[in-house]
């Protein structure tokens, strides 16, 4: 294989692996948006929140990861339940913009609460994913990226299966189509909301562990989690497979641009290039590349 090609593949695969994580986090947004029409700004804060609890419990109290991670998942379910009771339920018939603003409130409340308990210093979070490089032919991959991408891939597929194949998934899609009709068949919206916010919390735990392991647990994780935004612009807020494919496109596009365009433009490209890709697509399809088709009533 020519060296240029193997280098290209190396960059591409690295980008796709990172993109898988973006897809996963974007799915957290999509599920909440489908079930409640709320754009959950707090998703990124949930990632940092979860990572701070895991790293904090481990470092301060020596809780092993096999215990700290499940405990944090339980905690995130509790958080979902509290958010539903305290924030969403009282606001249920308000305008979407008010719901959106309330998630900005949740964003700061979560980070504030976590800092109150664990302080604001950054911590490392090493759960033992190997960091060694691996050679495949001429190509060099980071084993960390492979493991993280693999975990994300499995979870993304599980979530897609959940939405398409399970009873709760079907209920969730029904609620996404018509809240009122869903209530008319006996579905309690509050139950569905706790479920989707819990899933978003679970996604945050996974993203928190994976990114925390790479970057350390610190506020910059929030920025990385916001990489899900261009993914959503591109894939559409309501489409599950849209989120998956758009995550891969953004991940690959971003790392290819960094390597091939970065030197020309002058580096630092990965922070904004994803948005350029997304906006270029948006000009052609405002509802997102895979946004759910709006069915016109006959």
């Amino acid at each position, binding site marked *: 294989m020519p060296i240029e090609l193997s280098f290209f593949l190396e960059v591409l695969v690295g980008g796709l692996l990172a993109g898988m994580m973006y897809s996963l986090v974007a799915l957290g947004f999509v599920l909440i948006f489908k079930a409640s029409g709320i754009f959950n700004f707090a998703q990124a804060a949930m990632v940092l929140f979860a990572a701070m609890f895991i790293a904090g419990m481990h470092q301060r109290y020596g809780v092993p990861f096999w215990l700290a991670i499940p405990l944090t998942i339980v905690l995130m379910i509790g958080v979902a339940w509290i958010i539903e009771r305290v924030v969403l339920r009282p606001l249920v018939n308000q305008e979407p913009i008010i719901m959106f603003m309330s998630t900005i409130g949740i964003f700061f409340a979560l980070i504030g609460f976590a800092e109150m308990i664990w302080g604001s210093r950054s911590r490392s979070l090493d759960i033992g994913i190997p960091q060694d490089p691996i050679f495949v032919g001429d190509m060099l991959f980071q084993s960390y990226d492979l493991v993280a991408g693999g975990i994300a891939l499995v979870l993304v597929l599980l979530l897609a299966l959940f939405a398409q194949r399970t009873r709760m998934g079907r209920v969730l899609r029904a609620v996404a189509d018509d809240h009122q009709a869903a209530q008319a*068949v006996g*579905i309690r919206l509050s139950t569905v909301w706790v479920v989707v916010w819990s899933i978003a919390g679970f996604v945050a735990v996974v993203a928190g562990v994976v990114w925390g392991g790479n970057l350390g647990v610190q506020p910059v994780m929030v920025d990385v989690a916001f990489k899900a935004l261009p993914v959503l612009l591109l894939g559409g807020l309501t489409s599950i497979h849209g989120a998956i494919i758009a995550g891969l496109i953004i991940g690959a596009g971003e790392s290819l641009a960094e390597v091939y365009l970065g030197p020309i433009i002058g580096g630092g490209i990965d922070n904004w290039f994803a948005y350029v890709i997304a906006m270029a697509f948006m000009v052609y399809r405002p509802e997102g590349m895979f946004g759910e088709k709006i069915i016109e009533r006959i």
Partner: protein
Amino acid sequence: MAEQTGEAAPLLDMQNVEVVYNHVVLVLKGVSLHVREGDIVALLGGNGAGKSTTLKCISGLLTGERGEITRGSLTYDGEDISHMPAPARVERGLSHVMEGRRVFEHLSVEENLMVGSYSRKISGAEALSEIERVYEYFPRLKERRKSTAGYTSGGEQQMLALGRALMAKPRMILLDEPSMGLAPQLVEEIFHIVSRLRKDEKVTFLVAEQNTNVALKHADFGYILENGRVVLYGTGTDLKENADVKEFYLGVGSGEARKSFRNVKHYRRRKRWLA
């Protein structure tokens, strides 16, 4: 209102109910009606009379539209349900088929029916056998079982909405304007199925309709709503023979009938503005 004969307490009893939207708009101004188990009761009236509001008030779907009952009582099967959340009412056998069909558009026909059984907590296999029973009433749905519901025809969507409600095994169905936008023959077909469901499945119906003609043909009893009040009620046959109903709602009688019907509409619209 003791005109309706029958010894047993009615399945549904609504007394003097007032409904207000957004804390200010008074839409139902003291509506009383009752429905006996096993009856088909028609709720008639023109645009904006308050038919849908009445049904939403009974099913509990007002809350989602910032509407609330400010006065009166609402009893179903001897229980005060006026403050019960909608899903709890479904669990007690009270199902609402909303105006405009409202199927889950992106779900297939069969998935819609599956979701319809949500309140019963039955297994997938049980739900599938229930679906087969629904298909017996609506063979056309079976042919389209895998189709995306949003792309089926208006008639099929109306059947699906009714079939989805049946999946909850309701004791009473609140059916809102099943005739809307459908060809006369289809309307007839749907009312025929309603009659069969009452007879074979013992489902009680409260049907809101503008199509007075068809509704009264199948109903045992009827109420006529105007501007948030019951202005007339009686057995289906009595209403059909009533001169005012004939003139204003059935559009039969003198050669002036069509014109006067339109006049009445104008008059009513004006009255709504003033109210």
